[in-house]
């Protein structure tokens, strides 16, 4: 694998891009990172590599593109299957891991309302957010990680939102720690892993981004 060309098309504050970064770091894979200017113009390379959605992240492996963050993470896990497995080996556990990662995509990812919404729309989004995290708090329980003893696929799918927690708290007007103590502890635990610490954005920078973006949307 030494001569593999790996390029990651990314955007600095994207939770989806961060998932791929964590996976690449867990597997100690070297790659070239290219920042897309999503608020300006998308690069020709992005438009060529992901013509369907025109979105990041895109992993380009020896010229061939892989799109959609969780698909990319599974791809990375399957190719570099000689180290740091991200998914469990047992089929039932794998199915559970896929289920919960998919839950994060279905329920946490479409979070815009909390940050970018107003009035009733924002209120509804906030409530949905709290409901969703209640389920996740229950699912995590007293386990160190979602998969049990080892850090894995579900943790990767969710932990990248941790650097956005402060923004959610600010605009959703609630405390993650008060509402979801287990998730809060779990996030801290994940941050002790180098792959996570160096892949997540600084929450302060995320806050600044959110404020800026809200201005753009005319919410400030």
């Amino acid at each position, binding site marked *: 694998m030494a001569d593999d060309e790996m390029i990651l098309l990314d955007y600095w504050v994207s939770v989806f891009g961060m998932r791929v970064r964590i996976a690449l770091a867990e597997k100690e894979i070297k790659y070239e990172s290219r920042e897309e200017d999503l608020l300006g113009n998308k690069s020709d390379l992005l438009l060529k590599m992901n013509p369907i959605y025109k979105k990041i992240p895109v992993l380009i492996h020896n010229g*061939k593109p*892989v799109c959609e963050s969780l*698909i990319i993470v599974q*791809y990375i896990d399957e190719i570099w299957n000689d180290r740091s497995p991200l998914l469990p080996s047992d089929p*039932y556990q794998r*199915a559970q891991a896929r289920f919960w990662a998919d839950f994060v995509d279905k329920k946490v990812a479409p979070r815009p309302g909390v940050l970018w919404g107003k009035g009733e729309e924002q209120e509804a989004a906030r409530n949905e957010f709290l409901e969703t995290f209640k389920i996740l708090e229950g699912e995590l329980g007293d386990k160190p990680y979602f998969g049990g003893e080892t850090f894995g696929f579900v943790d990767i799918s969710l932990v990248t939102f941790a650097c956005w927690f402060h923004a959610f708290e600010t605009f959703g007007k609630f405390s993650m720690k008060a509402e979801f103590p287990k998730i809060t502890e779990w996030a801290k635990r994940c941050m002790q892993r180098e792959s996570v610490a160096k892949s997540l954005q600084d929450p302060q920078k995320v806050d600044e981004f959110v404020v800026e973006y809200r201005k753009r949307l005319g919410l400030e």
Partner: protein
Amino acid sequence: MANSSCSDVKVLGAWPSPFVTRVRIALNIKSVKYEFLEEALGSKSQLLLQSNPVYKKIPVLIHGGKPISESLIIVQYIDEVWSSGPSILPSDPYDRAIERFWAAYVDDKIFPSMKLINTAQGEEKAAIVEQVTEGLVLLEEAFQKSSKGKAFFGGDRIGFLDIAFGSMLGWLRAIEKMGGVKLLDEAKTPGLVQWAESLCADGAVKGIIPDTEKLVEFAKILVKMKGVPLGKN
């Protein structure tokens, strides 16, 4: 894993659901016997609520008492557990990524738009039909690349994307009929037209995809019941 007894494998489902169809095709490919527990329209059984507390939706596969939900996740589980049967996902990781991508595309873009054709009128309807047809043209391209001249996305045998997209054919035809529209046609999607025929004739699929007429009737019942066409599973 050795073949389990019929009671070991249960599928909670409903005959009209394309998502349930996926699970049944996958089990057929692996020659796995299962007990089909039909959920009554308009109500959810205790078993369903217990087995899928998060979404309370079908399909649910219950294997040795353990539930698995979400059709594409179930299909992958079936492929991995009954590994001695014909493979459903391709062995190459890149091909797997491509099939997963298109399966998600069917779920996120094709099927939701297809359902909207029923309620839409005039210009809006034309716009949605165009959107769906464009999506199907993209799938046609994917099919040409993936099949390499063979009958299925998976090559000689039905694979993951064949199941993911093929399961929608019943409703696709019903929507074509109800809406008076053509979605798959020889001019724009010749490969897929051929593919659809081959798929429906395949032993693992025969009898699983519901009759167009039955689905049209079912859609009418749904409208009466909830005022909403094509209720979600």
